[in-house]
């Protein structure tokens, strides 16, 4: 037998007790007896003889440990042994013959707790019913477990029914008894798990699978009851897990929303389902349930920001992105760090969205990053950078300079519009330079001219002349540019601020002499205004 070979190899070490190195007579005799028990020899010892041999060494813990290990091996090997039933019957007889103190000593013997657990589990599955009762009583005693008399009486009566009932009822009851014994043994022999936060997490995150059937309440019912009672437990977490698995997050959120005030269970449930994965699932659900997401977000707080950002980056649906932007913006400046981290993404649309979000969340644009994005190669990114920076007072001028210098109309437009209220001096050279460019968009010219006129800067003169004058005549006099809105605007601006300047004066003189009443009006109207 396999166990025999293994245990023979251990002989002389484990099976020693008393004086170091000298084999215990009792243990050795018991060892020989157990070996004989498993043999096919005719002179096998009886249970009573063997019990007596084991009892001789009952005070030696090491010997009792060895005996227990033997017995475990025997019970395990008997499953595959053609003679296994006979061996188990003999071992069962041995257990009924053992004195309670000896049996307790065997069970109490020190060693790895898991080995004792394996032994009692094997005993629960294999030993005869009377032996099982003896083991259970001794085990309770060995472990100082509360095993109240009435419960012991119930187990005894169960054992009696397992023996006395006619088939197949006896087999059914025996099965119940063995399962019960195994569970009792395991409960007793397993070290009591401390109710640590780690254990709690296990219960919450990996709850036991619920049994399906007529005698199982619907998971949603259990969750509802938990909130109504304001109580939690393994059953609630298992039910909650099932509801969530089946896509019922929105329903749970509804429950939590309508929970009684101050319900701790509802808060804990919200915290449990308020996870990144649940939020992600909801965000990707079709159809999109904004109310459910909002409820989840209220529970998750800022911890939801990263998931929202991920979805903002990856979502291809414009409406979803808009929703995400709005929700993220509500977090305010506290999300600046998270968003700036996402700016490392090189994709233009990611950077654009992140910059737009920083602006919407009213995050101050005071980081070195901003300058980099004002000069970004993609106009869509530059536009958002300009818009964001313009809202930070310390960055406004720099943003306007960048925006007014930009060759892309989509960047220039917001910069010009922002300059309506106040064109800072620092921005005048940029706009003046830009206005001289051939590709300066016509739709911005009038506005730019008006802004320059109001700035009063010397630099504005060249830009205004550029739009009002078209070279010189053969006589060397300035020639008016062809009539256009920007030409009239430039004339007006020159009339308002530069009428005393020589070149401007000459041009204005030409304008007053023009046959076109609109051109004349552009100059005269300003003169009248100034006079008034």
């Amino acid at each position, binding site marked *: 037998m396999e166990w025999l070979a293994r245990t023979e190899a251990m002989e002389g070490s484990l099976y020693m007790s008393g004086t170091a190195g000298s084999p215990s007579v009792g243990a050795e005799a018991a060892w020989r007896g157990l070996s004989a028990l498993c043999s096919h020899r005719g002179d096998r010892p009886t249970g009573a003889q063997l019990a007596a041999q084991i009892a001789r060494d009952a005070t030696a813990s090491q010997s009792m440990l060895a005996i227990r290990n033997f017995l475990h091996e025997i019970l395990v090997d008997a499953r595959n042994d053609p003679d296994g039933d006979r061996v188990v019957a003999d071992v069962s007889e041995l257990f009924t013959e053992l004195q309670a103190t000896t049996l307790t000593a065997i069970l109490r013997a020190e060693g790895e707790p898991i080995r004792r657990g394996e032994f009692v589990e094997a005993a629960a599955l294999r030993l005869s019913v009377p032996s099982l009762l003896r083991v259970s009583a001794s085990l309770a005693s060995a472990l100082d477990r509360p095993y109240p008399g009435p419960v012991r009486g119930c187990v005894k009566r169960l054992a009696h029914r397992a023996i006395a009932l006619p088939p197949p009822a006896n087999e059914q009851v025996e099965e119940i008894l063995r399962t019960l014994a195994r569970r009792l043994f395991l409960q007793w022999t397993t070290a009591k798990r401390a109710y640590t936060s780690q254990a709690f997490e296990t219960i919450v995150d990996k709850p036991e699978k619920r049994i399906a059937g007529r005698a199982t309440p619907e998971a949603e019912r259990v969750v509802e009851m938990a909130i109504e009672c304001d109580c939690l437990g393994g059953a*609630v977490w298992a039910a909650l897990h099932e509801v969530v698995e089946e896509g019922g997050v929105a329903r749970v959120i509804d429950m939590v929303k309508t929970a009684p005030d101050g319900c701790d269970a509802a808060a804990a449930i919200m915290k449990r389902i308020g996870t990144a994965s649940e939020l992600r699932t909801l965000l990707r659900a079709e159809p999109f349930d904004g109310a459910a997401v909002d409820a989840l977000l209220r529970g998750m707080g800022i911890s939801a920001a990263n998931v929202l950002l991920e979805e903002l980056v990856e979502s291809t649906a414009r409406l979803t992105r808009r929703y995400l932007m709005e929700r993220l913006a509500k977090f305010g400046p506290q999300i600046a760090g998270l968003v700036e981290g996402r700016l490392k993404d090189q994709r233009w649309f990611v950077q654009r969205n992140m910059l737009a979000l920083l602006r919407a969340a009213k995050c101050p644009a005071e980081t070195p990053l901003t300058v980099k994005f004002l000069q970004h190669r993609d106009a869509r990114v530059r536009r958002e950078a300009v818009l964001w920076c313009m809202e930070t007072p310390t960055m406004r001028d720099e943003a306007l300079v960048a925006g007014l210098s930009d060759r892309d109309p989509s960047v220039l437009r917001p910069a010009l519009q922002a300059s309506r209220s106040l064109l800072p001096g620092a921005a005048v050279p940029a706009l003046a330079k830009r206005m001289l460019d051939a590709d300066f968009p016509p739709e911005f010219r009038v506005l730019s001219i008006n802004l320059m006129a109001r700035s009063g800067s010397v630099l504005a003169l060249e830009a205004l002349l550029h739009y009002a004058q078209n070279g010189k005549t053969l006589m060397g006099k300035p020639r008016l540019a062809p009539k256009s809105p920007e030409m009239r605007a430039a004339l007006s601006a020159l009339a308002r601020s530069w009428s005393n300047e020589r070149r401007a004066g000459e041009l204005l003189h030409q304008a007053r002499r023009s046959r076109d009443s609109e051109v004349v009006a552009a100059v005269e109207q300003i003169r009248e205004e100034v006079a008034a």
Partner: protein
Amino acid sequence: MNTDVRNAGRTDEALRAPAPADWRTPEEVEAVAWIHAQVAAGRRLPVLEAETVVDLVFAERRWGGRPLIPLVPVQDINGFLAVQAVNVASLAMALAESLQFDDAAVRRVGVAALLHDIGMVKLAPSILSKPDQISPEERAEVVRHPIEGARILLAADASLDLAAVVAYEHHLRMDGSGYPHLAYPRSAHYVSRLVQLCDVFCGLYSPRPYRVAWPLDIILSFLAERAGFEFHPTLTVALASLVQHHVSLHAAAMT
């Protein structure tokens, strides 16, 4: 039909074995009383021990000729709670078996029935044993027992979801009345209805300090009158069939 049987003065023992002269409290009742004491003392519910009792009741039901309601009630209130728990478990398991529940489900029903009133152990003994009408304040305490029961069971073990639901719902009626108040309106679970019916049946079948036990025919009439309003109609019919079957077996055994 007149169901006022307070003065009926007889007990129909067709479903219960007569108490022998040397009668002593059976182990399952003692075990349940011990379980109640553990919970009353604020300890965790001993789940395995409760399951042991149910396993025993389950095994006993396979013992030929066993009565449908096995135990003789006692007058002491603590003893009554334990006896009532075992009786309700036995009857509920029998009813579940008659409704073709599988064995595992029958035992789950048994555990739920055994523990359905576990919240009562949190009540003051003075309320439990009061022979007179209870005051409104005391009633407010009493109607909390389903909530207390559900809390005890939810906190005890993940396997007790059905037991917790039954403990919570066993005073909800078919017409929506009863208690506790549900924040999320719903009808009670089928097994809650089943246990509720067995609880009422066993309660009426037992004598109390303030009344005698009701005769079987009157109990069945009482339940039938309230079927559909208070009790589940098809379960009421099933229980009546089960009871009548046992009565006829008892009558045959007598002859």
